[in-house]
């Protein structure tokens, strides 16, 4: 097992710290923001840079450590990118559905309605 040069460790450390910071910011936003849709934005930080930094750090670190190209950590952001939409899509749809059902103001009308006549966008009877 080869030793890891300091500059690599420095880069890795920076990436990790970066990830930590982004994740904390994301969590802060998620905790503080009012309204569900607003709260849905910050977690994207975690899904993206939060994981990308760690994956890059891992790839860099293990590549140096093992002396060969170790790209497998990058699979994780890739898979995340593919799978995360499922949850967010569904959850956003949930929020819309429930807001419309409850008649919450400032809720966009059903998309179908925008395509057809305005009559369909009635409130609850």
């Amino acid at each position, binding site marked *: 097992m080869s030793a890891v040069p300091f500059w690599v460790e420095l880069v890795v450390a920076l990436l990790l710290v970066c990830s930590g910071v982004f994740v904390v910011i994301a969590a802060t936003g998620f905790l503080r923001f009012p309204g569900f849709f607003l709260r849905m934005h910050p977690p994207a930080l975690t899904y993206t840079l939060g994981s990308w930094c760690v994956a890059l750090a891992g790839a860099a670190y293990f590549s140096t450590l093992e002396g060969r190209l170790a790209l497998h950590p990058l699979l994780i952001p890739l898979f995340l990118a*593919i*799978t995360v939409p*499922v949850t967010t*899509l569904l959850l956003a749809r949930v929020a819309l559905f429930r807001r419309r059902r409850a008649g919450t103001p400032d809720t966009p009308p059903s998309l*179908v309605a925008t395509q057809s006549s305005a009559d*369909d*966008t009635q409130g609850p009877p």
Partner: protein
Amino acid sequence: MSLALLVALPFVGSLLAALLPTRSRTLIATFAGAIAAIVSVVLLTAFPMVRGGGVIRQTIHWLPSIGLDLAFRLDGFVWMFAVMIAVIGVLVCLYARYYMSREDPAARFYAMLLAFMGAMLGVVMSGNLLQLVVFWELTSFASFLLIGYWYHRTDAQRGARMALIVTGGGGLCLLAGVVLLAHITGSFQLDVVLQSGDRIKAHAWYPATLALIAIGALTKSAQFPFHFWLPRAMAAPTPVSAYLHSATMVKAGVFVLARFWPVLSGTDEWFWLIGGAGGFTLLLGAYLAMFQNDLKRLLAYSTISHLGLITLLLGLNSPLAAVAAVFHIMNHATFKASLFMAAGIVDHETGTRDIRRLNGLIRAMPRTGALALVATAAMAGVPLLNGFLSKEMFFSETVFLSASPIIEGTLPVLATVASLFAVVYSLRFGYDIFFGPPSTDLPRTPEEAPRWMRMPILFLVAACVIVGVAPTFAIGRVLDAAALPVVGGTLPTYSLALWHGFNLPLMMSLVAIAGGVVGYIALRAAQARGRLELPPLIPRWNGRDVFEATLLGLTRGARHVLWACSTRQLQPQLFVVIATTVVLAMLAARGFPLTWGDRPRLEASNAFVVLWIVGIVCAVGAAATAKYHRLVAITLMGGAGLVTCLTFAWFSAPDLALTQIVVEVVTTTLFLLGLRWLPMPTRKAGEVAPLRDRVRRARDLLLAVIVGIGLATLSFAFLTRPAPQSISPFFLGNALPGGGGANVVNVMLVDFRAFDTLGEITVLAAVALTVYALLRRFRPPAESISQPDQQRVVSDERATDLLKPRRADAFARGYLLVPSVIARLMLPVSLVVAAHFFLRGHNEPGGGFVAGLVVAIALLMQYIVSGTRWVETRTRVRPARWIAIGLLIGAVTGLGAIVLGYPFLTTHTAHATLPLLGEVHFPSAAFFDLAVLGVVVGSTLLILTALAHQSIRKQAPAPPPPAMGDR
């Protein structure tokens, strides 16, 4: 002569009789009578061998380990009993042929009668006390079945049950007594026990032993306070009453008393217990007999009284009295059996047994009447009949007994009074039914009984007369032989002469007869005026009522105890289990102070401290929300599971972390699938829990906290201790060289402890099959049958993207379009990952289990986003087949090793050198992992799809939509 064969013969006969055509009574009666006759003849020829103290023995080993052998033993006393059983058996067979009706199933009757005969012979011939108990209980069963012969009658049912419970229960006491006796003497052999009289009486357990044996004997002989069953047993057919309940079975009790007389008698305990019970029963039975209106019942109480007499005689601790007892056993059997048979004829011919309705029968049936009258006289103790002789012996015993003044004073009076009563009830039996103006309102017109039906009575009455007239000639030698073993080898001098001079006993006889006549006239007069229909002076409750009430009370009490000591509710059960565990663990560890170990503490990680706090909060939150906020609870449970997974990962258990995470995903999905069928609970507004609930909650909380503290303490104790002298280094050292894998945990699963894994996948399979089977019969709750609320409000499909994925289109539509595409893109990826985990498992974290769950989750995702129909038109997942093949592979892999001569599941590695790839190792453990994979995929999918199928099975039409869009 084989005694065992002699005992076995009636049993064999019983079996054969049961197989004969049930209605051919002549054939069966002849057969049964022949058996009894053979036994009688064989026995009679054996008399010379048992005279003067001779004993015939035969032993067959059965269970020598506990001292139970089939030991048969025939001495004079036994001979007398056995002859009685056999000869009266012949007579009863003959009598019953005419008594039983053409429709009665004769096979059953005679089969049971023969079985009883065998059992009774077994009782008397037993040379082993345990064997005695065996046959003793057999007589109880035979009696039960015979009393219940006419089982459709409630009196038969009740009488049979009562007889069995009383005598059977007594038999259990006898068993206990016999066991104690054997413990004292060191043997169950009667011969040994009969030699150990002094030792027994000196032993501390003598009173207990005596009491237990006495209970056995007194119940069987219907002695006070157990006398009540005998009158109820009269529901049996009369031949049975004559045979079992007067002549033989009820004598088993006095037989045992007489049998143990040499070793148990001679003490005050014996005198008071046996003599007391006998004396009281003598009086009570006679007294009650006077007031009976039912012929058989009168005879039953008379039997009780006479058995009391025999018991009293045995209880007097005098050899002469014992001889008298033996004599009276014979005499009573002869006259009472004949009386029962006569009563049976009367009943048979007239259709009733009510003394008040029966009058003047002597005209209709003079011969039967004459015989009955002679027998009655014998019962009353009229001179020149056998009853008189034994009664005289009894009287003289009471007179010449030397005991305390009170006893010396009261006993003769008691004897005279009892005898007086006997005269009264004998008159009631004899005079009341045979004399006076003939009755006219009888159910049937009486006629003389058939000749052969009278023959048995004639035979017995003749015996009464012959013995009564010429006792020494007729019976002297038999009595000598019979009494000798009872008194223990030294016969007292006694005289069987008719005339002993004008002495006190004769006076007592005369007083009794005269008083009896007077008493009878007085009673008749009183009853004519409608008084004394029921016995006066006796409390309204009697033994039978007490018995029934006791039984009822016992059962009710038992129910109450059960109700108090058990529960049909789950919560108390679980509480008791947990609380008991806590208490037991503390008790067990008591006396050993708990200490912490000195292992170097783990390096602290702040991040983990925080994460564990997250876990703790999640756990507590899940506990708090599970009642009303199920989804929240599931979410929090997921959080707790995640922290568990992280803990595994942190503490060097990657395999566990992998498994935990996939299991977590599947479990959550499972809960969600289930939640569909659990309607949401709602908290009622302003609901305040009643005090009881709050108390219970506090109690549960306390227990939960104690368990938590206990678990934490235990785990802390181990966390701080150094590692034990574990066997684990072996695994670490052998995984690679021996198991062919670097991942020790996986090698353990597929090699070292593969047997565990085989069991584990079997569990999974069994659970999956169970779930499937249960859901096949699933009936959803009423409020869940219709579509969920969310779907009802959006059921207009043109207006919304919230569509049911119900058609097998190329793509799911609406809001599921994108998720379904993504899920399908991920399917091959997941399979590659599964293959990756499967193949690397042996050397790196992974393995068949994780791989299987990955496959299952990938497929599950298809179900979620595309719907059941869509998935199942594209592929036929046959989960049961996956399971079957998995199990088969597992078992066959294991057996393969056996075929090669190695133990089950031994791993073999095939080495091959392939071009391009070089040397390839292929361990058979991989097959085993394949088995795991198959079962995991199959089981998981079977469970999940079985649940999922409920949704498409119950598709109730939706109510009309309230609005469009998402409303």
